[in-house]
């Protein structure tokens, strides 16, 4: 049964955006040290890995699939980067190789999902372990830290004394590209159709399997890019880099109003969700809120994020219902 038209009056992504603005304003005024350029650059820099992966993940989820192996792909490309660097290869060669590796990881996921028709959740839980395991085999217990300074500075530094990390600029470009792809191209429109009703999309001549394959490949690519960024940003390539990142990405994307049943959501919402969580955690740390309490707050935020609009809507319809039924008595 489709929802009543009234019920969708307020779009959730705008609500998340508004929440983000409110949080930022409140933090600027009431949290000591939040508005300071250094802190903001920390905030952006530390949130960037989640944001980078959230881009393709949003597209994937809109198309009704999911990739839980992203963090492992990131770890794997970090591990490969470390071991090749140890082997004396030039970083300018290593990075493209890592990206190719990411493409391969995505391709494996994509082929398993589209060719064998396996559920992506199951496949990527498996490859999550597999990729992480391969990373462990490749790099073992090493932690490679001696990457060239100009790269480390780019990944960890900021532009002058401003709050902008260097790495934020390429992210903005990628964000723009992703927004255009999802919201302004036929490809993006097809993704919504695939996510909402795959069979109807197939009947409309949309190449469902190919589209999905592309998405998995893009996700692998972005995950490996994130892995490279992570290793440079934290100046440490280890096999267990970025462990657990997939859950942060999923939480942020969910918070941004992306429907995991597919077919609904906007990139703006997803990215707002990412930075809402990032900013909230930053502000809470500055306020000396303990890690445990932060977890509770994050959890409550998630629950409220889905419950809030529902409750508001139900109160609305209940009131409308009462008005409509009272005269008949």
């Amino acid at each position, binding site marked *: *049964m*489709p929802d*009543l*038209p*009234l019920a969708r009056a307020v779009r959730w992504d705008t609500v998340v955006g508004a929440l983000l603005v409110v949080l930022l304003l409140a933090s600027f005024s009431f949290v000591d040290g939040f508005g300071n350029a250094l802190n903001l650059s920390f905030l952006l820099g530390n949130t960037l890995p989640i944001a980078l992966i959230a881009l393709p993940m949003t597209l994937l989820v809109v198309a009704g699939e999911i990739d839980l192996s992203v963090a492992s792909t990131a770890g794997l490309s970090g591990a490969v980067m470390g071991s090749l660097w140890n082997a004396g290869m030039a970083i300018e060669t290593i990075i493209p190789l890592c990206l190719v590796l990411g493409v391969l990881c995505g391709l494996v996921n994509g082929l398993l999902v589209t060719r064998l028709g396996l559920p992506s959740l199951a496949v990527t839980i498996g490859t999550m372990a597999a990729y992480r395991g391969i990373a462990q085999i490749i790099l073992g217990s090493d932690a490679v830290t001696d990457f060239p300074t100009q790269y480390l500075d780019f990944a960890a530094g900021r532009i002058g004394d401003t709050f902008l990390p260097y790495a934020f600029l390429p992210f903005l470009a990628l964000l723009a590209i992703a927004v*255009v792809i999802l919201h*302004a*191209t*036929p490809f*993006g*429109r*097809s993704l*919504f*159709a695939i996510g*909402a*009703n795959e*069979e*109807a*999309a*197939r*009947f*409309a*001549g*949309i*190449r469902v399997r190919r589209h999905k394959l592309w998405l998995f490949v893009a996700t692998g690519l972005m995950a490996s890019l994130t892995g490279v960024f992570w290793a440079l940003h934290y100046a440490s390539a280890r096999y267990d880099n970025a462990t657990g990142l997939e859950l942060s990405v999923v939480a942020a994307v969910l918070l941004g109003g992306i429907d995991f049943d597919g*077919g*609904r959501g906007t990139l703006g919402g997803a990215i707002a969700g990412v930075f809402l969580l990032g900013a909230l955690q930053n502000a809470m740390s500055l306020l000396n809120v303990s890690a445990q309490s932060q977890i509770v707050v994050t959890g409550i935020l998630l629950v409220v994020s889905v419950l809030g609009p529902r409750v508001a809507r139900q109160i609305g319809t209940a009131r409308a*219902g009462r008005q*409509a*039924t009272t*005269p*008949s008595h």
Partner: protein
Amino acid sequence: MREPPVLAVEGLDKSFGAVRALHGVSLQLHAGEAHALAGENGAGKSTLIKTLAGVHRPDAGTVLIDGEPVTLHGPADARDAGIAVIYQEPTLFPDLSVAENIFMGRQPRRSLGRIDHKAVNAAAAALFARLGVDLDPEQPARGLSIADQQIVEIAKALSFDARVLIMDEPTAALTGSEVARLFAVVRTLREQGSAILFISHRLEEIFGLCQRVTTLRDGALIASEPVEGLTEDDLVRRMVGRDLDELYPKQDTDIGAVALSVRRLTREGVFTDVSFDVRRGEIVGLAGLVGAGRSEVARAVFGIDRRDAGTVEVDGRALVNGAPSTAMAAGLALVPEDRRAQGLVMGMSIERNIGLTGLRTTARAGLMDRRAERSRSLDWAVKLQVKYARIADAVGTLSGGNQQKVVLAKWLATGPRVLIVDEPTRGIDVGTKAEVHRLLSGLAADGVAVLMISSDLPEILGMADRVLVMHEGRLTAEIPRTEATEESVMAAATGRVA
């Protein structure tokens, strides 16, 4: 003085946002009487039924059972009051067996409240025998054709032994013989004292089954009267508010070169060795009983399913196996039979649903051109008389018939050279049906090759230049327009001729 009506409504109002689906509607159903509900697409018939079934809460007005006002809090209340409903769209559980679907929530029990699975299956088999159909009670509901789903829905409703049986277009996907059998069962029920409420856009069915008819137009009650003495034209006038043009406006066209050529097409276990041609300007009807494999042939031709053997050519160019996108590029279009599963994305707007087949053609420099998309969609929505509040509304909020029109619009908008339509007028009211026929006729006149699959035999006979008939997965006859009659087609469809 008659007994009070078993089920009645008075002064019913129901709005969805700005859309007033029903206003001031009253209706009485009496025991032992079959009552028809007529009206154009979007007139409010399904909404009325859902209100009677407790699915919708009325904004105003009362529901009376045996003359007593009641409030139905949900479908369970209606069921407990002895009301059985067949909804317009099948509501099956695809993962459960057909028998479980029929008896969900009311299974025969053994000791300790355990379900008696044997009894469930046996009861389902008995129901199917009564309907004269051959369905395996233990088969899962997933993969049933629309018609089979409809049969299961009917069996479910009959299993209630309900005092009131409400049926929203139960026959839309059925062919004549199943309809006849259904009617026989329904008549028995009526004679045993049940009240029947029946919706159909096939007027002859209303006249064949019902004693009274209530007509709705734009959510308002137009008339409630005995069927006796009424003519089809009267009824159409009440529904549409004007006289109807010819229902089958078949134009004579120049038949040209072969546009679609199918050779020895086979899908193992589904259909075998199917060969036929469709020429430019020609409308070819494809008839057969439910389950004969017509839709399957259409799917394989379009490339949704992979064919095991055979070739398909459009304008002399062979189509790649299993690739609808290349079929579309070659100028082929398929209007699928199941609008809910195959035709539409329910949560998406009307505009975008129509736009889905034109993503590449309306794009500029690789980007969506929203204005072009909107004008294309608006054009076709208007041409097909889709009744909507706003073009940006979700297509799921439309009435069944209007949804069907959107599916047609979506495919006609591609400007195909070869058009396959599978049950194109399923659930479409008589007025629009004529319009759809006129459109198809016009397309043929413009040189489009049309393959029309329909379970509505008069439609086939009225529109087709040539009739192909399938029986159990094989083409059994090819009958030219001049020789096509109900008898000749049915004979081939039931395999009574070689």
